[in-house]
C-alpha cells in the first residue's frame, strides 16, 4: 500500500460522493444523502491515512518532513481540511444537501493534485526547515477550508433567496425544498466564518512570527502577506456586515463568496501570477 494509491482511492471516493449528493439533490432520496456522506467519510479516512503514510514515506527516503512543503502537498491538505470541516458541520447540524456544494471543492482539489501536479516527495529547502511550517500551514488551511464551506453555503443562500424572490409559488416543488431555510443558511455561513476567521488570524500571526524569526521582519508587504490581509479585511467586513443596516443577507453572502475568491487568489494566484517570498509553493 502506497500513499499514492490511497490518494487515488480518495479522489475516486470524493467523485462518487459528489455524484451521489447531486442525485440526492435531484431525487430527494434520503438514503442517497446518507450514502454520499458515508462515502465522503470513507474518503476522508483514506486521505488521513494517505497523508500519514506520505509523511512516513518521506522519512523512509531520508528527507523526513510534514507533507506540507509544495503545491501538490498543500492542495491535497486543503482538500482534506475542506472535507474535515464539512464533516464537523454535518455531525453538528446534519444538513446533508450542503455536501452537493462543498464536495466539488474537495474533488476539484484532489483531481487537480493527482492529475496535474508533480507528486514526488522532495527534500525541504532551507527556507522551510522550521517547526513554524506546521503551525503556519495547518492554521491557514483550516481557515481556508472553513471559508470554502462558507462559500458553498453562500451560493446555496443566493440560489434560494433569488428563487424565493422571483417565484415563491413554485418553491414547494423544485430542488430547493431540499435546501435549509435561508435563515439557517445565513446562520451556517456565519458559523463557518466564525471558525475560519480566528484560524486565518492565527495563520497570519504564525506567519508573521516565522517571518520575524527567519528574516527579521514580521511584515514586509510581500504579495502573499498582503493578500492574506486582503482576505482578512473582507471577512472582517463580513463580520461587521451582520450588525450594519443594509448589509445583512444577500450582500453578506456575496462578501463570503468574494472572500473565498480572494482566499483562492491568496493561495494559488499569488504563486502562479505574482512573485515574492512564497515562491516555493510553485
Amino acid at each position, binding site marked *: 500500500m502506497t500513499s499514492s494509491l490511497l490518494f487515488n482511492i480518495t479522489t475516486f471516493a470524493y467523485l462518487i460522493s459528489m455524484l451521489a449528493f447531486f442525485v440526492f439533490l435531484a431525487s430527494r432520496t434520503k438514503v442517497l444523502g446518507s450514502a454520499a456522506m458515508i462515502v465522503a467519510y470513507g474518503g476522508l479516512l483514506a486521505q488521513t491515512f494517505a497523508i500519514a503514510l506520505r509523511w512516513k514515506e518521506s522519512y523512509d527516503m531520508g*528527507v523526513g518532513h510534514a507533507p506540507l512543503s509544495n503545491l501538490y502537498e498543500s492542495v491535497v491538505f486543503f482538500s482534506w481540511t475542506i472535507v474535515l470541516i464539512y464533516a464537523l458541520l454535518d455531525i453538528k447540524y446534519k444538513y446533508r444537501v450542503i455536501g452537493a456544494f462543498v464536495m466539488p471543492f474537495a474533488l476539484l482539489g484532489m483531481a487537480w493534485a493527482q492529475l496535474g501536479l508533480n507528486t514526488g516527495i*522532495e*527534500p525541504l*529547502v*532551507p*527556507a522551510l*526547515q*522550521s517547526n513554524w511550517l506546521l503551525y503556519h500551514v495547518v492554521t491557514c488551511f483550516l481557515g481556508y477550508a472553513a471559508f470554502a464551506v462558507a462559500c458553498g453555503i453562500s451560493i446555496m443562500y443566493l440560489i434560494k433567496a433569488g428563487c424565493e424572490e422571483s417565484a415563491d409559488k413554485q418553491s414547494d416543488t423544485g430542488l430547493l425544498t431540499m435546501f435549509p431555510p435561508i435563515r439557517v443558511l445565513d*446562520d451556517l455561513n456565519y458559523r463557518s466564518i*466564525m471558525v475560519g*476567521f*480566528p484560524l486565518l*488570524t*492565527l495563520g497570519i*500571526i504564525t506567519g*508573521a*512570527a516565522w517571518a*520575524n*524569526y*527567519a*528574516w*527579521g*521582519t*514580521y*511584515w514586509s*508587504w510581500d*504579495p502573499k502577506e*498582503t*493578500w492574506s*490581509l*486582503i482576505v482578512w*479585511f*473582507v471577512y*472582517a*467586513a463580513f463580520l*461587521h*456586515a451582520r*450588525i*450594519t*443596516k*443594509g*448589509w445583512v443577507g444577500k450582500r453578506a453572502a456575496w462578501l463570503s463568496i468574494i472572500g473565498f475568491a*480572494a482566499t483562492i487568489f491568496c493561495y494559488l494566484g*499569488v504563486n502562479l501570477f*505574482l512573485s515574492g517570498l512564497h515562491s516555493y509553493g510553485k
Partner: protein
Amino acid sequence: MTTPKKDVLRSLWDAFCSLKLTMFLLISLAVISIIGTVIPQGTPAEEYLATIGPAKISLYKALGFFDMYHSWWFILLLYLLTVNLVACSIKRLPHIWKIITQPVTVMEDGLERSLTNVATIKNSNDPVQLKEQITAFLETEFAEPVVTETGGTLHFFAQKNPWCRLSVYFVHLSVIVIFIGALVGSLFGFKGYVNILEGESISKIMLRSGKELDLGYTLRLEQFSMATYSNGAPKEFKSILTVLENGKPVPGYANARVIVNDPLTYKGITFYQSSYGDASEYLFTATDLDGKNPVSLTVGGQSSAKLPDGSSMCLLESTPDIAPYSPGLSGPAANVEIHKTDGTSERFVVYANHPELNIEHAKNHGKGPVLHYKGGEKHMYTGLQVAKDPGVGIVWLGCFLMVIGVYTAFFMSHRRIWVRIQNGSVTVGGNASKNQGAFQLAFESLVGRLKTDLNKENK
C-alpha cells in the same frame, strides 16, 4: 455661533461612529491593497520599468504606487480605521459597561416580554423552602444568584461570562496595540544588510535608507558553506560568525552558526542568513605569442575579464591540482571560456605549470594572446539581513490580545437567568448575547432539571 459648530462636530462624530464607515474602510483597504501586489514595490527592476513606459512611471511615482503601503493615502486610511474603531468603541462601551457592572437583577413584565426564553413552573412549596431550593439549584447548575425581594415577590438573578461582552473591544484594542508596536519599530529600530567576505570583518552595516550604521562591535565571517541534496536542490546555507569586542572574540559568540531559520542575536541586533556569493579571484597573464607585452588579468568566480584583443574570458572551473584529471600533468589549472569579438567562442584548459601547452594551444588556434594561469583562491561571501526592532514585543502582545479577543468574541456568550416566584408559580427567563440556538437548548434543559428538582423535594 456655537450651535452650528457643535452640529458640525456632532455629525463628524456620528460619521466616525458609523459602521457604514467601517464597511467602507475595510473594503477600500482590501481593494486598494491589491495595487501593491501587482506593481512591484521598492525599487522596481529596469526590465519592469521598460515594459510600462515613461508616462506610467511618472504617474505611478506621483501617486506613490512604488511604495504604496507607506504612501500618505494608505496611511491615512489606516488612521481613519483606527479613529473609526476607537469612536465606535467609545460610543458603545458605556452601555456595555453598564450591562456588566449594573445588571438588571429583577425580571419585570417589560423585560419578560423582551426575552425569547421564558418558562413557568407551577409550585406550591413553602416560599422559604422554595427560596433555598432555587438558590441551591442555580448555584450548582448555573451560577451564584443575587436574590431581591420586592413586595412579596422573590427575584433571582444569575449570570455567566458577563465580561465576554468586552471581547470585541479587546480585538479593537489589539489592532491599536499592533499599530503602536509597528510605530515603535519604525521609530527606534532599523533594517539593513551587510555582505562579509570569508576571513574578513565588518563593524558597519548598510541601512535600507542608504545610510551606514556602526554596530559598536565587529563581526567576522569565518566560513560560508552551502550543502545540497543529491538532486541538486539546496539543503543548507551556513555562515560561521564570530563577534569581536576590542579585537577579542566574545565568549559564547565565537564560531556561532547562522543558517536560514536560525539567526544570531547580539546586543539587540539580529543577523539573518539571507544570500551568498562567490568572491573568488583567479589570476591570469596574457602575452603575445613571443611572450612579450604581458598583461595581468583577474577573473572573479562570477564575472568575466577583457583580453587585450577585445574578447572576453570567464572561468568555468578551476583546480589547485590537475594531476587527477590529466595524468602526467601537475599544478593548478583553469577551464575557461573565451568569447571572441567575431561572435565565436571556445573552451579550453589553461595551466600554471605547463606554459608550453598554453603556447601550443594559442598557436593551434590562430595568433591570439597566450594565456597563463597563475592560480587563484576560492572565497565566498555571505549576505546577512540585519535588524533591530524594539516594537516586536508590543506587536506580539497585540496579536495575543487579538487571538484571545477573537476567540471569546466568537465562542463565549454572556448568559443570564432570571427567576421570579410569585403567587405559587416560578417564572424563569433567560437571555444570551450570542448563539441563541445553543442557549435555547441549554435553557430548556435547565428548566427541565429545575422542574424535576422542585417536584422531587415536593414529595
